[in-house]
């Protein structure tokens, strides 16, 4: 094994990452992925010393470690692909090919990921993209988006249907591309960087910002105190409960079940209002900052939170009990959008999607950060992989998170006096930060140059893996069940498009 092993939020010297020949690099990472406890968290390329450096990060869930190795290649080179052997790499290799101009000899479908502004081949535009099509008199194609009927983000969905039945779904994204990763390098001010991290995905502000500040602090050799760790964990867990509750409302709405939509929708509000009370923003923007905070979580806030839960929890439980006992609701959710354990393993799915198929991908237990290292987190797992499993996971994670939150707010750590620290990252460093957001694992990864400036910043939202899961789940379902399947994953467009 010729790879360097590091932990979540550990800084290493970039030059200590072994550089292998491409064949060796490929063989080693493919062998690693044969083990079920390993999955690829990030695989990217960047220009380095006039060549292209490929860096592959594989997380080992049982060893709590991350194995990093790298290889050097040149632009316009044609390489054998990892994907031909392990499909979990498909999106990463498509991204590398699109950004770096590397060709692959045996990649099964090298379709563009997001048409970034700095792509290698400017001639690749969505306008001339050949969508997958079938020449048949019996089948018909339905194209949805990028402008959607519901007010959500843009994405294009191309269905090939046999009557009402979906045979194939192709998803093409990239309409939300803002160039987040290059903006991280351009913006020199730390505050600008944090605000960028906050705007990666509006529904995962706490998740992405925690990933960024943890990464920044590890690059600067700063260890956040117990108070900051506790604050960040509280923010992550409130965000998890709020979005999960909102998702249950959205699921109810898609099956036209009015009480669920009304009650779950209402229950989301007190949670995000608690963020408003805490930091003045309902989406937790401005809350999390590197090496300090403007909004310490106080005992007064804790009292208000606990009081709010007294009425919140009975309402939630009552609604859930009605919801999951109603035959009409179950008829729509059960056995809809089924994914198998084998499929989620193949595509390297993470988060709720993986856990609904009995695949335990959960950073909170495998690579714990912040307060999670003090609790022995047991992931909520389901086996059936249908829409109902994903709804059940949401409900049980809400219950679990409420337990963690009660524990956290009842036992607030002694606060250290906050002073604004101007930290500077160590030169020539490499670090990875993994965070379990409500949607799944977020991976931020950075390399600094010899002046301590960011040289490369990679963001990976869980949606990057999971969009494929949606495409697989809707196969052989009715096309009218697509909205409810889509909502059960609730993937991010902007988190994917960056």
């Amino acid at each position, binding site marked *: 094994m010729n790879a360097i092993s590091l932990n979540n939020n550990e800084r290493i010297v970039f030059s200590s990452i072994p550089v292998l020949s491409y064949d060796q690099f490929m063989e080693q990472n493919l062998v690693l992925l044969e083990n079920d406890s390993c999955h690829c968290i990030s695989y990217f390329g960047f220009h380095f010393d006039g060549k292209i450096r490929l860096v592959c990060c594989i997380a080992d869930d049982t060893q709590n470690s991350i194995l990093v190795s790298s290889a050097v290649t040149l632009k316009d080179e044609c390489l054998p692909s990892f994907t031909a052997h392990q499909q979990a790499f498909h999106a990463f290799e498509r991204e590398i090919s699109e950004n770096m101009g590397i060709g692959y000899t045996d990649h099964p479908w090298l379709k563009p990921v997001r048409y970034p502004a700095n792509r290698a081949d400017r001639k690749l535009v969505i306008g001339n993209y050949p969508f997958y099509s079938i020449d048949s008199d019996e089948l*018909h*194609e*339905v*194209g*949805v988006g990028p402008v959607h*009927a*519901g007010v959500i983000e843009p994405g294009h969905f191309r269905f090939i249907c046999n*009557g*009402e039945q979906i045979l194939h779904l192709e998803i093409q994204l990239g309409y939300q591309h803002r160039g987040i990763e290059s903006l991280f390098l351009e913006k020199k001010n730390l505050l600008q960087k944090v605000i960028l991290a906050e705007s990666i995905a509006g529904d995962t502000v706490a998740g992405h910002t925690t990933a960024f500040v943890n990464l920044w602090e590890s690059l600067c050799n700063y260890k956040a105190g117990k108070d900051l760790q506790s604050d960040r964990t509280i923010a992550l867990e409130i965000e998890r409960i709020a979005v999960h509750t909102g998702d249950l409302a959205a699921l*109810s*709405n*898609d*099956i*036209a*079940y*009015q*009480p669920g*939509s*009304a009650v779950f929708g*209402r229950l989301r509000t007190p949670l995000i209002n608690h963020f408003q009370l805490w930091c003045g923003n309902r989406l937790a923007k401005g809350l999390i900052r590197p090496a300090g905070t403007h909004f310490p979580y106080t005992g007064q806030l804790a009292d208000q939170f606990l009081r709010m839960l007294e009425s919140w929890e009975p309402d939630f439980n009552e609604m859930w009990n009605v919801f999951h006992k*109603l035959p*009409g*609701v179950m*008829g*729509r959710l059960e056995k*809809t959008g089924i994914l198998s354990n084998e499929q989620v393993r193949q595509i390297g799915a993470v988060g709720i999607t993986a856990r609904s198929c009995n695949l335990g991908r959960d950073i909170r237990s495998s690579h714990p950060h912040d307060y999670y290292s003090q609790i022995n987190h047991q992931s909520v797992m389901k086996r059936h992989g249908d829409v109902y499993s994903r709804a059940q996971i949401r409900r049980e994670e809400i219950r679990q998170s409420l337990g963690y939150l009660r524990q956290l707010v009842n036992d607030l750590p002694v606060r250290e006096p906050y002073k604004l620290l101007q930290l500077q990252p160590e030169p020539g460093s490499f670090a990875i930060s993994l965070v379990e957001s409500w949607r799944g694992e977020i991976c931020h990864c950075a390399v600094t140059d010899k002046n301590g400036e960011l040289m490369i910043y990679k963001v990976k939202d869980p949606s990057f893996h999971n969009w494929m899961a949606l495409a697989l789940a809707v196969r052989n379902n*009715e*096309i*009218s*069940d*697509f*909205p409810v399947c889509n909502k059960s994953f609730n993937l991010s467009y902007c988190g994917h498009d960056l």
Partner: protein
Amino acid sequence: MIAFVLIFLVSLFFTGFINRTKSIVSGRKGPGILQPVRDILRLMKKGSVYSETSSVIFRIAPLIYFSSIVMAVLVVPFGSDSGLISFDGDFVFFAYILALGKFFMIIAALDTGSSFEGMGASREALFSMLAEPVFFVLIGSFSLLTGCTSFHNIFISLNFSSYISYATGAMATFVLIMLAMTENSRLPVDDPKTHLELTMIHEVMILDNSGFDLGLILYSTGLKFAMYGALISNFFIDSFPFYISIPVFLAVQFSFAVVAGLIESFMARFRMSHNAQFIFALASVSLMIFIGVLLMTGKLI
């Protein structure tokens, strides 16, 4: 004449009552009762936009659809007062004039060339086809029971005397309510609220309609509901004098709207493939009415 005027009056409030019921049940204040009418008036003042690919079919379809419903309303009687048009076999006319309007909506949806509207048209055609026997077995049974073939004669000769006839009356009301929900594309068959083009039936067919045309189509929903409500109320209005029959009519329409609102509040929409089964189930309830009638007329035993 009186039926026509009353149905028109009720149609203005019907969707408003459904929406208000749903709002109250979900704990919201909700829009005013007349909001749907205001929306329709606003739409009618607007001009329509027509796609370049659509032909004259698309332009005339909303008008034909609307007038077909008006024609159907004309044959609906009110207690002892017959409809404006009344002749032997007018319930066949009633069913097929409605089918004609629907047919034009379907071909107009296909005319737009949109893949969504094609899907909606195919769904609408399937469910209307399945709903047709439900209606004919139901009215045919009463025709057999009374020996008459026009709505007016059927309803005035219909008198409830035995337990079986009460049972058939109750079942007929149920079938007519569910049929009205199906024909109007409401829950549990279709959800008018979702606005997800992949799941809709009727709503997806009218995606390309705008302005006056859309206003007509939306108003038709209220009119259709009121028309089915009038049919149901005829089961309850005997040859009462007007000062009793009109309040009974309004009460029946009001409870119909509330029931529709409650159904929409407490049910989830069916899976698309289960809709056909649901309509089959309605057809079998119709058959039970038919058997009940055979029992009553002594044709079975």
